[in-house]
């Protein structure tokens, strides 16, 4: 079971780039890395998913080094509306679907 480790919280200012790193030392060969975002009083929502190297969509980028033991979610030019909790999820093929406690991002004006 691949356990993930993320920083508990991060602060940033509007317009800055934010990078949130997730460690997953025991990731299995077939595991994907998925990131979710959760606003207060809402369910999590999918941001991005990747397997290796780099993935980019309209919201974020995901960087995965060759050893895949970590991954970095990059949010370009954050705004106040990006204040949320971000979860890194790996090993979803098990019946545990471990989300962890996530990283609480606070964006200041």
């Amino acid at each position, binding site marked *: 079971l691949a356990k993930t480790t993320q920083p508990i919280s991060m602060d940033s200012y509007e317009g800055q780039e934010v990078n949130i790193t997730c460690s997953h030392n025991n990731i299995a060969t077939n595991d*994907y890395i*998925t990131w*979710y975002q959760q606003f207060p*009083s*809402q*369910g*999590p*929502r*999918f941001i991005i*998913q990747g397997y290796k190297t780099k993935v980019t969509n309209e919201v974020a980028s995901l960087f995965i080094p060759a050893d895949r033991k970590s991954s970095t979610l990059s949010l370009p030019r954050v705004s106040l509306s990006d204040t949320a909790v971000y*979860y890194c999820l790996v090993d*979803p*093929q*098990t*019946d*545990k*679907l*471990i*989300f*962890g*406690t*996530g990283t609480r991002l606070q964006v200041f004006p």
Partner: protein
Amino acid sequence: DAGITQSPRYKITETGRQVTLMCHQTWSHSYMFWYRQDLGHGLRLIYYSAAADITDKGEVPDGYVVSRSKTENFPLTLESATRSQTSVYFCASTRGGYQETQYFGPGTRLLVL
């Protein structure tokens, strides 16, 4: 397109009572999940279902019962509610397996007195 809905959104009950939380999705997704979210614990999987009439335990199944007679519905029942089950409950679904994007409902906030 309603997506995935949960009812009720808020519920107050007393210790020992039976409570059923409803989850309904309109996408005909195969997989459905129930999570609970508590401060300091993140999201923890209670039960999941791969298809109608197929259910299995997650990380924290004790005290909960699920059923899935129809693909679109996945009710979660607390047979005898306890205070430790006070939590926010989220239902989610995926089109196929675990690797796919999970779509979450708005949550049910449950208070057990």
